[in-house]
């Protein structure tokens, strides 16, 4: 189904959000990221206010090493069983949620670029063509069909800002009903239309 280029609506459908991109290499050791994250805090990297590093590598399929920020946190996450870089917007968006989500995705990609560079490891590659987005606000976007209908245009518009010339597929990611409303954005070949 083709998404309208200006879907409209859904402006109150997103409070907080998580987004994750995946690494095709699942066996990467988390420990190497601890000094990188501490260095980023020291150098005030990534633009936002970074606060601390939390180590959850002892938790099977957990959030791994977390770089805790004031507005935004990053983690080398395995909580859905797959290794990747996850960004968590910790505070609700103020204003247009499309702006908020787009800036969160930009933060995710900036962190991915920096991580691939600083890890100094050819094995660490993060796939930017598949993005899992989870609404982290069960009041505004419950994990229901209605919630998805509200969230989808926001995601589509935000993704379009980052991938203006790509074909995008936005689809609901099936999960536990008690979990967060989740969608996948698939970034396909360059194109001028957005599909879902």
């Amino acid at each position, binding site marked *: 189904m083709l998404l309208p280029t200006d879907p409209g609506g859904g402006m109150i459908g997103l409070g907080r959000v998580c987004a994750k991109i995946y690494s095709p290499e699942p066996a990467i050791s988390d420990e190497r990221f601890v000094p990188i994250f501490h260095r980023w805090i020291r150098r005030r990297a990534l633009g936002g206010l970074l606060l601390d*590093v939390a180590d959850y590598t002892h938790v099977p399929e957990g959030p791994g090493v977390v770089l805790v920020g004031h507005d935004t946190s990053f983690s080398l996450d395995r909580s859905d069983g797959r290794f990747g870089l996850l960004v968590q917007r910790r505070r609700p968006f103020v204003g247009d949620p499309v702006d908020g989500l787009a800036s969160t995705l930009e933060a995710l990609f900036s962190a991915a670029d920096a991580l691939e560079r600083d890890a100094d490891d050819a094995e660490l590659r993060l796939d930017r063509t598949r993005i899992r987005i989870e609404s982290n606000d069960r009041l505004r976007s419950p994990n229901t069909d209605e919630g998805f209908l509200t969230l989808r245009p926001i995601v589509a518009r935000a993704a379009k800002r980052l991938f203006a010339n790509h074909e995008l597929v936005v689809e609901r990611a099936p999960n*536990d009903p008690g979990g967060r409303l989740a969608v996948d954005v698939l970034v396909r070949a360059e194109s001028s239309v957005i599909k879902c």
Partner: protein
Amino acid sequence: MSKDYSSWREALADKIPPSMAEEIDDFENQMELRKAGKLEEKVFAELRLRRGAYGQRYDNGKRHDGFRTQEIPFPRRGLTKGPETEFDAPGMQRIKIPFGKLSAEQLEVLAECAEEYSNGVLHITTRQDVQLHFVDIEDTPDMHRRLAAVGITTREACGNSVRNVTGCPYAGICRHEAFDISPYADAEMRFLLGHRDVQDFGRKFKIAYSGCAEDALGCGRAMMHDLGFVAAVRTVDGRAERGFRVVVGGGLGPVPHVAKELYDFLPVAEMLPISQAIARVYARLGEKRNRNKARIKFLVAQLGIDELKRLVEAERVALGSEYSWNELVPAADAGQEFLAAPITDGRTAPAPGFAEWQQTNVYTPRQEGFVAVLVNLPLGDLTARQARRLAHVVRTYTADALRTTADQNFLIRWIHRADLVAVYNALFDAKLGLNGATTIADVTTCPGTDTCKLGIASSRGLGAELRQRLSDRALQLDPVVKDVHVRVSGCPNSCGLHHIGDIGFYGSSRNVGSYKVPHFQVILGGSLEDNAAHYGLAIGAVPSKRAPETVDRLLGYYSSERTDGESFRDWVVRIGKKTIKERLQDLMTVPSHDEDPSFYVDWHDAREYTIGDIGVGECAGEVVSLTQFSLATAESKVFDASLMVDDEQATDEEVLNASRVAYGAIVTAAQGLVKARDPDIASEPTAVFEAFKRNFVDTGVFLDRFVGTSEWQYFQAAHDARGEAKDRDEARRRVEEAQLFIEAAHACYSRLTPAAV
């Protein structure tokens, strides 16, 4: 949840008991007042602590980055939520789980809160609480509402109050218990929660219930608590009578005390009144100024147990029988927690590792046909996703039979034996099927330097390291060695319970040259036996990076030297700490920084070690008087009333109600002042009015040259009308007058206590 709701407050309005909803609204108002500078930071600190909203490391706005201490540029730098505590700094939310009992629904809501307000991790504490870290305080009211909607309160989870009432997680299924303590622990919790006699303590107060005296597993741990109850049954005239051995004045911390016996047998009917009498004695005579001497253990030591008992019994006589204690104490045991029949036929093929898991994680209760299983959580952590899957297991195979344990695990009870494999398989799929529960690999730790303001060394870093090293070996070890318990605290305060570990560690620091080096004091000889009545003693400090080798060496000696059946503690006593220390002496040295700089960095950190990040702890809370609490509550009420009258969309009835709320605020403020003279003042408005007039108006205390006279008249007018207003204008005026009365009450309190803060 429908998107039609604009807030959790609205969405859950009919699901939260009114009193809980009001308390949470009050807290939200107090937060707004604090942000507006209208509530003193120290008062707000204690108010939020009593809602379980705790500070966290670096919340003073400073953090050492390994090279220097950097200021953290929080957006509203200077706005505080307590002394030296930045408002915008993330904090910790402690959530009370009385005696660890938790339903599947409650666990699911906890998981939701962990995802939306924290980092997706739930942490089980050594007192059966749940903690969420990196929480924004402005999210806490909604979190509290969501928890309250499923029957969980965070009230008095921190601060100088009665903390979570803990209890043996095996209660009701234990093979050794006298009787199931669950309903009694529940009654105690409900009786004391928010009780007026537990609001004026100088420090926290911890209560524990144990089901048996010969508590080899140490599940109840009554002897290390401020107040402990150990179930007992005696026979009187041929009839079995339930009661408790009551112990008081135990506690760990830097100066550990083993509790002393107050009663060898107290009938269950006296459990609550005696608890109340003890609270009254502690509130009246306990230390208030010096927090280091303020726990009841110091009062017990100072008075002696006989004098304490005399005072308690005098209070008990004074209490009479006005309360409905007997209604609160249950006549029957806890409700049924098992399903009528197994879900499976027991022929399911087990997932890998079942035999090893069964060896360490399965408990056989006294009820035939059932099992209980421990869910082994590394360092007490699980993800929200895992929590939901655990809730599903609990719901599928039991009737909500879940408990948290003081060893930072979960216990699923009342599983039909036929379903054991199916339960394991489900846990295995959720990555919750780790074996080794309560073995040497199941290391207990406090949060330490990860998040605690008082942490000196990385207890969780060491705990994770020990866990990793010992997990693979644990199952191969001799059963007696395998059951040695390792407990790690980040500082001497013993939240990791190092005193009762066979091997305990607590964080310390040493100077080597111009560097600081993280160390751990080694504590040997503690034990859970006899309800955790045996504390270990320090034998010396080893560098943090040598702590794992220290454990290896101790286990090596113990394995080779122990006599048949000799416990680790008995081996320590037999060999002697002097000898053991000599054997560890070489591990107490630190190589130079040039030789091995890794010693100067703590576990799972990358920064050069410093103690510059240690802050002021909030365990002790702030000593805030009952009057200050009442004034803060009154402020919150009048704030609510002002919102009502300012709302142009409000109906006439809503505005008139604001007048009633304002009157309630005046009564609360007046009651607060009277509490300074009479802590037992009732809350009934006429009683407050008369007591206030007698104590503060007739004596001239409330009346000052500049304030007081008019404000007293406002009280009189509002009282004569019982808070009712004729119209919107009068309602608005009543709200303004209430605000002025509260200001006058503040001024009066300042005059009464010129040194008070």
